[in-house]
Structure formats: C-alpha cells, structure tokens
C-alpha cells in the first residue's frame, strides 16, 4: 500500500511538473517596462490568453537593452515577439533577428494605414509624434510653430532628447528646405538654437521630470508623454506646429526568427491590430491607432500624433525614412554632440 501511494505521489509530481507546463507553454513578449508593459498585458495579452488559452509572459527593458539581448540570444531566441520603434526594427532586421510576417495570418493588417506597414517583418501598432510641448505657466509667449523654438524669449528654457536627435535635426533641415537625407542644410540653423537649450535628456522619464520641475519648460517631446503629464494635472500645451508637422514615431511588433511559436505570435499580433484592441490602446496611451477603422475618442481627435484617416497620416505628420534614420543616426549623434551639446 505504502509502495502504491509512493508511486502515485511520484506520478502526480511528474504530471505536475511536465504535463500542464507543456500544455501552457507561454508566449514571451519583449516590451518596454512600466505603463507600456502594463497596458499591453491588460489590453492585448489577457484577451489573447482568454481566446487561445496560451499564457503570455513579458521581458521588459529599454529599446536598446532588448536589442543587445536579442542579438546575443540569436541562436535560441528568449522571446517570441518584440515591440520596438520602427527604425530600431531595421537594426533587428539587419542581423536577421526578425522573421518575415505571414500576412495571410494577419487579416487585420488589411485595415492598417499604409504607413504602418514598416517592412515585411515589422508592423506598426500605434503612432505618436515628437512635437513641441510647453508649460504656459512658465513661458510667456504663445508657441505655435517649430520656428518659435528659436525665439530669444525661450533662452535657457528648451529641453530636447540627446539619445536620438533625429527629430530636431530633421525639423531644422525641413525648415531650411531639406529633409533627413539632406540634413546638413539645417546644421547652421540648429547651431543657432544652442542659447535656448536648457538641458538634454536621455530618457522619457527625465523628459517628464524636467517638465515637472520647470528646468526645461519647453520641450521637443513625445506626444504620449505630454498627454500623460496633462492627465496628471500639469499645465502642458501640446502644439500642432503650423510651419512643419510633428515628426512621427511608429512603434512596431515583430516575430523573432527562430521562434517555435510563430503561429501563436501571428495570432497575438493580429489581435493587437484588431479594431477593438486598437481603440483600447489609443484610449490608454493617447496615441494614434494604426488600424484606420478604430474609432478615436472625441477628445483625442485632431490631437498631435493621432491620425484617423489616410489623409491625416499624410498631412499631419512627417515620417522619416527608417533606413536613412538607422544608417545616419551615428553620424547625426556625433555631429549633435560635438556641435550642439558641447559648450
């Protein structure tokens, strides 16, 4: 009897540690931490698990930490799906880290804005813009266009990202009749902005801190962050610049090459692109949907970074070429550090 019960215990243990775990092999999603992960977990992962029975686990980290990790784990990917920015997606692709998407398995992709299809390996899930945000309680002038950043009244008040100066470099070039490919056209203009710069920031969190403390009350800022500050009660105005549009950023999803859960990963991505899920993502992030059928809440309509029609995608945002951005960023950064950041 005792022997039988020992066998039963052993069998139960084997079942406990092997059987159910196999049945519930999780889909691993790599994403940014904090609110990003929480929202994706709540809005996408939970319905996905409810629909498919496949649990979802997350690996969180910064854009480039996760890229570095993915590279060293290339032979045996630790994650199945990666959320990243569209131009960093190009870097993943350059090293063969993404697999090609099977569009037949992504029927919801048919409803996407053309701009959301960043490549055959990564697809846009939401959009935003880098635009001007400022605190009217600390800045006396009314800022309405990019050119206002150069106004002497803003001396020592402007903050901008130094980890990725693409946006302000492109805007300077656009104001001088160029674009990101002919960025040198904006160099002299950008140099003239130096007296107005209070600080550079290297993370979104630092950007928000600088706005909150008033150390940099005018910023070239991610629209999502600006909306987040407004929601927290901070008096922040987000500008729809009149001279040139905001610079669009598109966050994307991709499936890692070598994953054994490609089918589940396609299902996850397709769900994230569906109209219902997109509407929830938009409402939570205050970002623009990539699915053109998604209904945008009335108070967000027309806001910077929120595009509802193909025409709005075209007219209200400037989309940099991902390839140019990925290949030029090292040179931009070196020039920016030497000519703008250095005193």
């Amino acid at each position, binding site marked *: 009897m005792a022997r039988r019960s020992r066998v039963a215990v052993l069998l139960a243990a084997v079942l406990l540690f092997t059987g159910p775990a196999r049945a519930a092999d999780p889909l691993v999603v790599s994403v940014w931490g904090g609110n990003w992960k929480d929202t994706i977990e709540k809005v996408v992962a939970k319905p996905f698990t409810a629909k498919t029975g496949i649990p979802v686990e997350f690996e969180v980290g*910064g854009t*480039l*930490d996760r*890229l*570095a990790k993915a*590279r060293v784990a290339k032979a045996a990917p630790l994650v199945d799906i990666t959320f990243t920015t569209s131009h960093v997606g*190009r*870097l*993943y692709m*350059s*090293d063969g880290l993404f697999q090609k998407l099977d569009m037949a398995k992504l029927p919801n992709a048919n409803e996407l804005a053309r701009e959301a299809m960043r490549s055959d390996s990564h697809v846009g899930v939401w959009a935003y813009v880098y635009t001007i945000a400022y605190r009217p309680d600390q800045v006396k002038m009314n800022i309405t266009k990019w050119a206002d950043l150069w106004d002497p009244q803003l001396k020592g008040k402007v903050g901008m990202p*130094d*980890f*990725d100066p693409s946006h302000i470099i492109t805007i300077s070039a656009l104001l001088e009749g160029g674009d990101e490919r002919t960025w040198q056209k904006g160099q002299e203009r950008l140099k003239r902005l130096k007296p107005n710069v*209070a*600080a*550079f*920031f*290297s993370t979104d969190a*630092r950007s928000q*801190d600088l706005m909150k*403390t*008033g*150390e940099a009350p005018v910023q070239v800022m991610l629209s999502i962050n600006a909306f987040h500050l407004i929601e927290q009660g901070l008096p922040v105005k987000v500008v729809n610049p009149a001279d040139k549009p905001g610079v669009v950023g598109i966050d994307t999803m991709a499936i890692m090459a070598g994953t054994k859960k490609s089918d589940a990963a396609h299902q996850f991505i397709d769900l994230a692109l569906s109209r219902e899920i997109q509407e929830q993502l938009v409402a939570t992030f205050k970002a623009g949907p990539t699915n053109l059928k998604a209904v945008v809440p009335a108070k967000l309509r027309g806001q910077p970074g929120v595009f509802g029609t193909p025409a709005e995608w075209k007219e209200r945002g400037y989309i940099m070429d991902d*390839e140019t951005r*990925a*290949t*030029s*960023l*090292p*040179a931009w*950064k*070196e020039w920016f*550090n*030497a000519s703008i*950041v*250095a*005193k």
Partner: protein
Amino acid sequence: MILLLPAVGVMVLLAIALAALLQFSVLEFIPGSLRTGGLTTRNLEAVLKPQYLRYIWDTVVLSALTTVLTLVASYPVAYALARSRSAKLRSLLLVLTLAPFFTGAIVRTYAWMLVLGTTFIPWPVKLLFEPAGVLIGLVHFSMPTMILILAAAISHIDRTYEHAAASLGARPWRVFRRVTLPLSMPGVASGSLVVFAWTFSAFPTPELLGGGRVKMIANVVKDLALDAFNWPGSAAFAAVALAVTFLLLAVVTRALARAGGAAA
C-alpha cells in the same frame, strides 16, 4: 594554492571580457547594421579625434578636482571621527557617514537635482547641468569612502608622537601639520587613489546632473553603444579610456607614494 583558484577564475573571466572588447574595437562599424565588417583601425582613429579626447580630458579634470575637494572636505570629519572624545559625536558622525551607503546612487543624485535646480532654491549661478553641479554630486558621492579610509589611517597613528611634539612646545596646529598630517599620508594616498579611480568611471552622476552637457568617459561609451548603435566605436573608446586610466593610475600611485615617502 587552491585558495587562489576563485581569484584566478575571476581574472580569467575579466581577461576574456577585455579580449572581446579589444576584438570589437578593431572591427569595422557598418552604420544601420548590427553586423560588423573586417579588421580596421578606423574606430581607434575616430576616437582619437579632438571631440573624443576632450571627453577624456574633462574626465581627468573632474576626477582630479573631485579627489582634491573630497580630501579637503573629508579630512576634518575623519579627524573628528577618529579623535573626538565624545562617543556620542563619534557615533553621530559614523551614522551620518554611513547613511549615504544605504541610499542608492540614483536616489542621491535625484535628490541633488532638486537641490541644485532652481525650482526650490534660486541659486545666483546655474549649478544643475553644469560641471560645478556634477562636481558637487561627485564629491558628495565620494566623501563617505574617503572619510572611512582617512579615519582608519588617523586612528592608527600612535598618539605618543603627538604628545612628544606637544611636550616639546609645539602648538596644536604645528603638531597637526608636522606630525599628524604626515603620518596620515598613507590614508590620504589610498583614499585619493580610490576616489580618483572610481570617479574616472562615474556614470549616473554626470548622466543626471550633467543634463547631457557634461559627459564623462562612461557616458560617452554608453552614447556610442546604446544611442548610436556603434558598438565597435564604443569598444574602441572604452579601450582608449582604459589605457589612459591605467596610465594615470600608475602616475598617481607613484606621485602619492613619493609624497607619502617624503612626508614620512
């Protein structure tokens, strides 16, 4: 001999990591790609440009200033910690010295951002996002270690030398200058070396208090690797900085040993 095995293991691991760094530094960087090309000296040539040499120079200057200011600010505290007759004062100083160790570097630096910024205190000169602000943060960060090293050195001084000097008519200041200070030089040397070396590799303090305007070596390594995706360039800059660090440490160690020897 067997007791040395863990140390040898760690050294081997470090040597492998260093070899990987050096290998990366001579591989060609392909913009817009994570792949690297063939062997090249271009990365090393690129980081020897004035722009990058300036970051190394700025780091040397900030590290040297931090060392000197930390020493000056820490010595009186260490002296009181080692010599005060009041046990309560010694306990209080010890608690105050150790307290920063229990808060992370990031927390302390964020606190300094509030203090040095103009939100709460209208400073007459700009401190935040300026070298002065970074210097203040670095000195504060280094003081606890310097105080403990100095206090240990001072407490090991045989007080009969000081009593002998006093009994021969030397006034307290002269006793300090001619006896205590020279005998505490080994502590001054070790404390300075430790502070100089770790300030040289400082990252969060210049990153946060420098506001992108004040960059030290570690910040530039991160810029190149994680912002510009230029891993070979980053490795090359790190290798050059490492060579400079070894060189400077050798110079500083020699100078301090000479100063300590002369004082003794």
